[in-house]
């Protein structure tokens, strides 16, 4: 059982390493969306610091959302998804492995880039620290919920946009708690409450999302 999980993980990581281009593009997308906002909103440092956490959280959401639309799509197109589903292991493990791989590949790098963008938005070190913690808790939620969306929209025309539409509403709590934690520390009201709510949401997603995603995957393949 854990051998299957490891096989899925290793496979997805190997594939990501082969397609370094795709991976880099996703990271750059994050940087670019975050950089668009100052261009639209204007360059005053105080204003940027104020909206910074929100913008970074929204940008991180959009960046990992876009890569999510290909979570199962590539494997579906070349037929290997069917082979994986036809393996003697439970589909839940497959979904869990792929979500985990997605988080390692697309979530973790966001954590590494976010501080640089935080500096561009004039955030304080303390705010950046909390931003990191909140992203650490929040990005796996996106990978898990995104797995559900990706399974539901598998093979549909315009799947990417539809996925966004399905997942964003579910994801709103994470966004509110996450950006709220950073806002809290900047406003001096502390971040603990927000962070623990975020953690609870993560545990909840971990317990529910893979099962729903596995069911959705079987339905989409019918």
């Amino acid at each position: 059982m854990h051998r299957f999980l490891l096989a899925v993980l290793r496979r997805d990581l190997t594939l990501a390493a082969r397609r370094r281009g795709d991976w880099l593009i996703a990271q750059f997308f994050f940087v670019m969306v975050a950089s668009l906002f100052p261009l639209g909103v204007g360059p005053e440092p105080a204003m940027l610091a104020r909206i910074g956490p929100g913008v970074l959280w929204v940008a991180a959401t959009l960046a990992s959302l876009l890569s999510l639309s290909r979570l199962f799509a590539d494997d579906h197109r070349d037929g290997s998804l069917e082979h994986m589903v036809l393996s003697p292991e439970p589909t839940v493990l497959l979904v869990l492995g792929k979500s985990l791989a997605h988080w390692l590949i697309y979530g973790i790098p966001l954590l590494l880039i976010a501080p640089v963008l935080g500096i561009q938005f004039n955030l304080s070190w303390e705010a950046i620290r909390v931003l990191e913690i909140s992203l650490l808790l929040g990005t796996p939620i996106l990978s898990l919920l995104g797995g559900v969306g990706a399974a539901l929209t598998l093979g549909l025309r315009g799947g990417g946009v539809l996925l966004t539409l399905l997942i964003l509403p579910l994801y709103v709590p994470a966004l509110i708690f996450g950006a709220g934690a950073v806002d809290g520390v900047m406003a001096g009201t502390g971040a603990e409450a927000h962070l623990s709510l975020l953690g609870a949401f993560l545990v909840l997603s971990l317990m529910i999302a893979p099962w729903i995603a596995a069911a959705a995957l079987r339905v989409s393949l019918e």
Partner: protein
Amino acid sequence: MSDAHLSVHDLACARGDRLLFKDMNFRLNSGELLLVQGGNGQGKTSLLRLLTGLSSPEDGEVRWRGDPIRKQREAYHAEMAYLGHANGVKDDLNPVENLRFADGLQGRVFDAARGIATLERLGLGRCLDLPCRVLSFGQRRRVALAALLLAGVTLWILDEPLTGLDVHAVALMESLIRDHLNGGGMVVATTHQALNLEGVTVRRLLVGKVEIPELA
């Protein structure tokens, strides 16, 4: 292997709001080939997906060794391999890596020497280091066949395995099927092309209402 058999009882299949077939019954024993034939859009692919358990029937059931497959999914999938219209070959991996991951995902341990021997037997000896992206359609199909052979399972379900293959590849495919059947395996296959399968028990199943002349 000897008592393995696949049977179908009162099977019905609907896609969209159209009933493709109903009351289908057959039994396939080891060493036998089932050739599923029918005109375009009559439901051959749909039937094969029912047999794999990827989709579930409108009515009736599919049984493996006498028990419904949905009650023993994992045991059934450990003895069955499916090759669909798509190959399941990753473009970014080379043939050997493809076999390794295919084995890993099926819960088997990969034996590199055997994998390479199989690839060479299929005429891919010179492509071992190339990513599958640069292989031609026929060569990629052969990688998928190598995975099928390595799986070492009893039941093969093949959906138009000959599409786009050249005459040499078709001959190779025929001999592989013959060997598998003679070793006690079972095959369910669809095709629109003629197949040369002498010395093999071929059962024919016509799906749909369009008359199709004998091909094999």
